């Protein structure tokens, strides 16, 4: 506070003047000369009382006026607690509000609103301080980060969008949301940029960048004790439970109870320690479904203290056809593809194939069929594979030199149509990294591929074919094709280390991981973490979750999808019948404690000084209103003025 602010606010001390004047005048009526005063009877007590009552309104008005003048003098230098957006040069603003809607934001300190409610209120106040011409974008930091409202100047729409937002059981993807927010500023060129982050920061650190985030509510990062049930799954005669606690104190003295139709059938005392813990509870034979779990005791987050028990499931089935001699490693062991799948430590059930089955029923337990350098497919195999894909499966082929040496009558359909050639010593070196952006950071490693050959596809012949990655010379590297409810993926390089170092690069692992994920989503997961997208392709299931029907979203590349945000059981009704899926919590979301906001994010260090509030106009109007009110009061009382009527 500088001298000018102090001096202006000191004017507010003059508020005592009307009070002093009031006390001096109190009890002393207007003195008037009156010769026959001796004939007038004194009524002193009544006089004082009435004078006291009469002056109160005027006194209040004058005191308010003086205070208003003082604040008007100090504004906009005065620091107000009300949240607002500062305007450096007074021009329009481009505002991106990152609102964390992850599970941890549901936590509420005793007697206070939850973190999410406070964050949403703060966002609403910030929106109130925007003006016509400002653009606003709202990003959600529940995993995966997403755009709730793209940058728009329709402030009413922004307010409506904000009002409709609700907390979820998702994990936190604050870094992704901040990146999305920064990218949203591209459309707001010329405006001052404000990146507002309303989160508890229970997530990995936010990457540095421009603009720096402003954290108007650092109090959201207050640490709150919590112990929750991340997931629970029936495994035979027991229930496997994943528990997560922020610290030992949160777990101390608490008991996990297994309920069958609401009746407790088993219980287990929690060990007083923080972090993730896996426990098992025996299910009595008499226990009836559905089963659920409950944690007794209280903590800051009650939503994660109960959970449904997912029914028995089997892992994701993956059928792999790979030639040990061609696709194996020099050091021995399983083919490289199988080793990669095993290294990913997924809940995967591998089915090594020697030949592609002639019957689709042989693949009914598999979600992914992966063929490494197949030597063509016979008619029965093609039929079985097509049926498998049309039912929602994912078939992927790493096409290599054996494609040219296929048997008579064998083709590579449905992976490739038309001519398929193996090109030796191609001029192109490496894949086009830019076309592999969907693979993540590991895609860069594929840019340095130096294969001895590659497969050239005639992508134009297959209907619905989409090239998802190319070689550096533009030739197709990876091709996808929708077939029924499923997907066919063709990769133009085998895993064999004799052909290339493709299988030894991180990009290959990322590609296999991507295929597993796709297969899992297409096949449908019986258990998934909140925020995981379920892909249905052309299928149109009816999904009913804990909070009612779940909306399907049309996606241009994946068909119909749905993303459950809340944990619990979901019932899917499709043409094939009914299916139950369980949505669980990400244990990390429960164990990650809030971290302090980035240094300097509260107000200084390049962040906009949002707490400084210019209320000159509002104060000036208020002062005018006060003066008008005083004039009105005086006009009304002119006849009542002591001494005359």
């Amino acid at each position, binding site marked *: 506070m500088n001298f000018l602010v102090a001096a202006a606010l000191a004017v507010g001390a003059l508020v005592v003047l009307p009070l002093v004047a009031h006390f001096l005048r109190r009890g*002393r*009526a*207007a*003195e*008037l*000369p*009156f*010769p*026959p*005063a*001796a*004939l*007038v*009877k*004194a*009524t*002193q007590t*009544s*006089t*004082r009382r*009435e*004078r006291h009552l*009469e002056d109160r309104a005027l006194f209040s008005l004058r005191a308010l006026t003086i205070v208003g003048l003082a604040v008007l003098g100090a504004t906009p230098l005065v620091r107000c607690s009300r949240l607002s957006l500062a305007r450096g040069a007074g021009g329009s603003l481009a505002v991106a509000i990152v609102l964390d809607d992850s599970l941890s934001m549901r936590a509420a300190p005793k007697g206070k609103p939850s973190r999410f409610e406070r964050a949403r209120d703060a966002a609403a106040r910030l929106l109130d301080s925007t003006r016509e011409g400002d653009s606003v974008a709202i990003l959600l930091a529940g995993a995966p980060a997403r755009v709730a409202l793209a940058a728009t100047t329709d402030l009413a729409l922004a307010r409506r969008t904000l009002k409709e937002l609700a907390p979820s059981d998702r994990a936190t993807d604050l870094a992704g949301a901040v990146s999305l927010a920064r990218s949203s500023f591209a459309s707001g060129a010329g405006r001052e940029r404000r990146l507002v982050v309303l989160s508890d920061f229970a997530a990995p650190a936010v990457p540095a960048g421009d603009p720096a985030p402003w954290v108007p509510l650092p109090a959201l990062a207050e640490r709150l004790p919590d112990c929750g049930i991340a997931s629970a799954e029936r495994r035979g005669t027991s229930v496997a439970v994943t528990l997560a606690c922020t610290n030992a104190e949160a777990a101390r003295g608490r008991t996990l109870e297994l309920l069958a139709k609401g009746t407790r059938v088993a219980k287990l005392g929690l060990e007083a320690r923080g972090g993730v813990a896996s426990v098992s509870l025996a299910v009595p034979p008499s226990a009836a479904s559905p089963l659920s779990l409950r944690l007794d005791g209280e903590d800051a987050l009650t939503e994660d203290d109960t959970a449904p028990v997912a029914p028995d499931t089997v892992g994701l089935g993956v059928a792999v056809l790979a030639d040990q001699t061609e696709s194996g490693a020099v050091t021995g062991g399983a083919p490289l593809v199988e080793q990669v799948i095993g290294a990913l430590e997924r809940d995967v059930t591998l089915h090594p194939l020697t030949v592609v089955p002639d019957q689709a029923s042989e693949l009914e337990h598999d979600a992914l069929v992966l063929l490494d350098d197949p030597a063509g497919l016979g008619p029965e195999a093609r039929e079985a594979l097509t049926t498998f894909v049309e039912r929602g499966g994912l078939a992927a082929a790493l096409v290599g030199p054996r494609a040219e040496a296929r048997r008579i009558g064998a083709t590579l359909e449905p992976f490739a149509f038309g001519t398929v050639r193996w090109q030796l010593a191609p001029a192109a070196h490496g894949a086009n990294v830019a076309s592999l952006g969907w693979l993540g950071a590991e895609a860069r490693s594929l840019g340095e591929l130096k294969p001895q050959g590659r497969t050239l596809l005639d992508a134009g012949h297959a209907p619905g074919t989409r090239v998802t990655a190319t070689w550096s010379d533009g030739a197709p590297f990876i091709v996808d094709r929708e077939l029924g409810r499923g997907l066919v993926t063709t990769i133009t390089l085998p895993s064999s280390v004799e052909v290339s170092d493709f299988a030894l690069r991180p990009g290959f692992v990322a590609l296999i991981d991507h295929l597993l994920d796709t297969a899992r989503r297409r096949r449908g997961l019986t258990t998934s973490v909140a925020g995981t997208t379920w892909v249905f392709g052309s299928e149109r299931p009816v999904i009913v979750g804990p909070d009612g029907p779940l909306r399907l979203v049309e996606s241009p590349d994946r068909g119909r999808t749905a993303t459950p945000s809340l944990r619990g059981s979901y019932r899917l009704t499709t043409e094939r019948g009914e299916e139950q899926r369980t949505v669980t919590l990400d244990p990390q979301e429960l164990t990650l404690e809030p971290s302090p906001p980035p240094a300097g994010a509260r107000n200084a260090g390049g962040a906009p000084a949002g707490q400084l509030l210019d209320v000159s106009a509002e104060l000036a109007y208020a002062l005018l209103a006060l003066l008008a009110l005083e004039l009105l009061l005086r006009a009304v009382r002119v*006849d*009542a*003025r*002591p*001494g*005359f*009527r």
Partner: protein
Amino acid sequence: MTERFDQELDWGALAPLRLRARSAAEGLWAGPHRSLRRGAGVEFAGYRAYTQGDDLRFLDRHALMRHGLRVVREFETDTDRSVRLVLDVTASMSFAGSRARGAKLAFAAVVGAALAWIALRGGDRVALEFIGDHGLPLPWGTGMPTFERIVSALEHARAGGSVSPERLTQLVTRLGRSSPAGSITVVFSDFLDLPASALEELGALSGRQRALVAVEVLDPDEIDLPFKGPVRLRALESDLVVDTDAPRARADYEAALAEHTAKWRDGFVARGARFLRASTGEDPGAVVRRVLEGISGAGA
């Protein structure tokens, strides 16, 4: 000070007015008023026995020749009248309320000036006296120069201070000595804050064939206490201050004022004087007429 009332007074309307007193005037010079003196008048007054030295012109020769009686015929002699104006110039006369066009003293001065003008035009003598220390008294005088002096004295009169009982006694004594029989004394005062003996002293100016008209001059605000809400009232001739709630005190005040006025009225009337109240909110001309009516009915 008197300008506002002066402008409102229709001096032309006062022209036909004359001073008429039921009591006989005892003037030194011939005038329009009936005199106790018998002499060279025109109106027959009666007979009386001749005494030596009587003017033989009035000897009734018919009575002498027919009856042998020596009687003289007497006629009423027309003589002038003495009018004394007494104005209260104590502080209370300076009061002017919210509805009055001027102070009470100004109102009294205009009415007094009008009476002087009427009297002087009729050939009467007029003198001016003040109750208080802020006026310049004028001795008996006649003619328009006297009117000019009276107007000047009234204009320069200022209300202030109060009058002590001793001072009032001295004044009344002096007036009593210098007032001839048949003289008319008109007292203008609000009769507020005067010494306790004032009623007795001023009442003495009536009687002995002298007429006294007391005019109580009050401001409209003094008559009905119009104030609203709490007020602090300060008397002008004392330290008295009264805090009151005017609406609540109004009824009591009006009763007290009526009682006060009745005391003065009854006191003056008991001594043969006339008493009337004038409000500064009234037309001064109307007040002049009421005073003249009072003069006509006053005295023996």
